[in-house]
């Protein structure tokens, strides 16, 4: 190995020390952390030099993101390191955000004491009715939840906030909740089995499969088409979709499958556009926004399609120009340290061509073409 190569791999080995993560805690443990926060605040407020303590939060920006590249495995992931940013009441532009953190902690502590779990949407309605001036939109709630995660260093789920249940699974998979009936995901019809937002429940599922592949699909419409055609019987597989940008529960579920059945390769089926690639990368590496938790659920997803050389399979008319938003996403992806070389090449091809295409364009060749396309790609090991 070259000196630089050795250096690089040693650094990888030590990168785990930089890792900053959110613990998965029991409700009692979270409440204990909240109590410590309150006691500290009151002590400093009532001291001989009274002050309103600042809130130290893990910085969730790309400047604090790091990449861990697996040495013994092919898995790489993004994580956040120990760089902090501070929320202070004493800054007029930040005072409201400061108060929001405390209001959310108050709400979460009530939820945990009542031994309940709520979705982010339910939490928004509660907070909006209680303090509309502080939480006028869902975005305010979501961001403040991440602040509390970053402050208390506990996972969102530990705070009593359930992930949304957007994901679906269909195919050759048997699921069983403890003391419940077994669910056969091949018999669930075109809508598949809804992946619960309750991570505890997902963790307790017993999984059995005879599939040979896992296919992660970006769009619901494609998932439905493949489920309806029972593609998972022709190619023994499990189909999963998050219906767009992957939520935590779907990522967690996929991760469980990959850990339970490590021999199953995971393929990603996304549109030929920067957003599609970004979705693939989120499944693959995790995200910065939820960087304290997402790193755990990174999976080795391989990019099956659509890719650059598939564009010849679709009619010219189905190609659409890239919009400014697409270019923004592409830029963000390009600047990410984690993007591997061959993905970078594909992305460059996309941007330089200035056009994008959806998977549905393949139907031009017939409605059963998609299945043929998948089979061909898998057999030819045509994935990266």
């Amino acid at each position: 190995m070259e000196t630089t190569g050795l250096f690089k791999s040693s650094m990888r080995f030590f990168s785990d020390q930089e890792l900053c993560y959110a613990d998965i805690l029991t409700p009692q443990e979270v409440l204990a952390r909240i109590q410590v926060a309150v006691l500290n605040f009151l002590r400093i407020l009532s001291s001989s030099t009274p002050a309103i303590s600042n809130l130290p939060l893990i910085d969730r920006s790309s400047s604090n993101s790091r990449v861990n590249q697996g040495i013994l495995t092919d898995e790489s992931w993004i994580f956040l390191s120990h760089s902090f940013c501070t929320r202070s009441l004493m800054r007029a532009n930040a005072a409201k955000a400061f108060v929001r953190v405390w209001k959310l902690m108050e709400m979460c502590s009530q939820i945990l004491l009542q031994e309940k779990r709520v979705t982010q949407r339910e939490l928004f309605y509660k907070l909006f009715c209680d303090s509309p001036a502080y939480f006028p939109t869902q975005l305010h709630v979501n961001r403040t939840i991440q602040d509390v995660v970053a402050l208390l260093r506990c996972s969102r789920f530990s705070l009593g906030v359930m992930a949304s249940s957007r994901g679906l699974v269909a195919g050759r998979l048997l699921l069983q909740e403890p003391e419940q009936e077994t669910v056969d995901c091949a018999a669930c019809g075109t809508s598949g089995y809804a992946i619960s937002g309750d991570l505890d429940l997902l963790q307790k599922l017993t999984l059995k499969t005879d599939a040979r592949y896992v296919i992660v699909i970006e769009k619901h419409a494609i998932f439905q088409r493949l489920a309806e055609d029972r593609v998972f019987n022709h190619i023994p597989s499990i189909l999963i979709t998050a219906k767009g940008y992957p939520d935590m529960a779907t990522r967690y579920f996929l991760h469980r499958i990959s850990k339970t059945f490590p021999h199953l390769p995971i393929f990603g089926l996304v549109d030929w556009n920067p957003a599609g690639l970004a979705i693939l990368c989120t499944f693959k590496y995790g995200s910065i926004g939820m960087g304290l938790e997402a790193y755990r659920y990174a999976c080795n997803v391989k990019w099956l399609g659509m890719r650059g050389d598939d564009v010849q399979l679709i009619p010219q008319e189905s190609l659409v120009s890239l919009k400014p938003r697409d270019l923004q996403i592409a830029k963000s992806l390009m600047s990410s340290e984690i993007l591997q070389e061959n993905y970078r090449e594909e992305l460059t091809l996309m941007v330089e061509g200035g056009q994008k295409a959806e998977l549905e364009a393949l139907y031009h060749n017939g409605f059963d073409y998609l299945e043929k396309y998948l089979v061909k790609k898998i057999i030819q090991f045509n994935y990266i």
Partner: protein
Amino acid sequence: MEFASLQDLCLLLISLAIRRCICSERLCRLSVLLQRSPASDPPLVRISISDTGLGSCIEEFQNLKCPVEGILAETWNGIVYVRTTNICDKEISCYELNLKENVTTRKPILLPSNIKHGVKFSGTEVCLSVSESVDVLLEEFNCFFQKILVLKVPNIAMEVMADGQDVPGSRNDAVFLEKFSPSSSFAASTLDHLKLGLESYVLRHGSSLACDSCFPNRDNLRSGGGMVCEDKHKTTKLVVEAAVVTSEIPNPTNNCFGAGCSDTKVLCFKDFAPCSISEALLKALTGIDWKRYGLALECAIDQRSHALLKWEHMPLSFHIHIVVHCYDKLVFEAMPLLQKTRFDKKLIRKAVKLALDDFKNKHAGVLLSADTLKVLACSRRNQEQLPKLASIFHLQISKFAPDLAKSIAGLVLYSSDMDFKEECLAILGLQPHQSEGEIVGENIKKKIISAIEVNDRRQQGTREVAPLLFEGRHELQYVDDECDEDGFDPMDL
């Protein structure tokens, strides 16, 4: 009741009309109509002031005293025509009165009345014909009504119209119209209306629309009010109301108040009409202990239409506006005769003080005591910018104190852990039995405001960085509220 000029007379007649409308306690209209009749020689303007309030008793006009000689000689013959009726009257009574006659000897001439034919209404119209420029009169009336808006007299629609008869059939539309505000009602006190009226006046500062550059939103205004009253006669009592409004101007160097000017105009009203400044008012204003409110008065100047208060060391972006209104309030239902409302120096001082105290109670952290001001004044000699920032800072931060305190009190009291609760109460200096939400919340709120004030008092260069909530973590950079920025990007890779 003496009036020195035609304009004074008209304004007096208008205020009589306002009082009649207020006494009626129902929706009323007040119209001032100016009609040109150029055909006559010399060209005359007919001024008609009409209202739909209580009917007038002619005695109202009996006491109006016209100056014997002088200005009015040429422009007006002294005659006013009064038509008035009460709800239950069957007729509209009409009178002619010569105000140039001696008060003691003058008698109204009864003119033929108009039958109402069973229709129930009440109101009064006073007319006089003068040789005066319509434009001059219009300007006076506009100015008057702009000021009257401060009183925000409830439920009176006011309009001024000038009728151009140069071209037959033409009519100039209302040059001034005061809208009803549906939210104001008779249930709200005149003091509440006074506060709202002053706020609106400040927002508009003279024009008809709120000024966006000085006041991007109404949040920058804060108000307080106070009232005292004293029994005068069996039927009336003297009421003095005062309102205080403070404003923060985002751009102190370029605004409608004049760059570098933080003087206060004190508006004065008597019996629902603007009045000139009296000696009693000036003495009352100078006699207030402004230091209690963090203000240092340099001098009070009579500027006829208002009093001007000049301050020492006032931050350029901070303005205080004050209004004082003295009037007779009817205790029993009786026709309001125009009594001579005197300005009582003590009552005025007390009313303004109550307004300032009310303000200070409602807006914690503003109008700090003199000690803090001294510190600010001291640092101002070194850095011009500093006190301005300090007072904006105070206004902006301390308003979050109640909500923050409520949340933290909630966290303490909602817990099921007794040890934790007791420990929190002990830190706050409270006893276990003082665990009610309000007590704990108030305690925390006071401490938060105190911490803000302590922070505020320090000079900026020596302000210590606040400690972090959790130990052992190094502080790096401050973050602003990202939710206010554009674009949440889920693709945050």
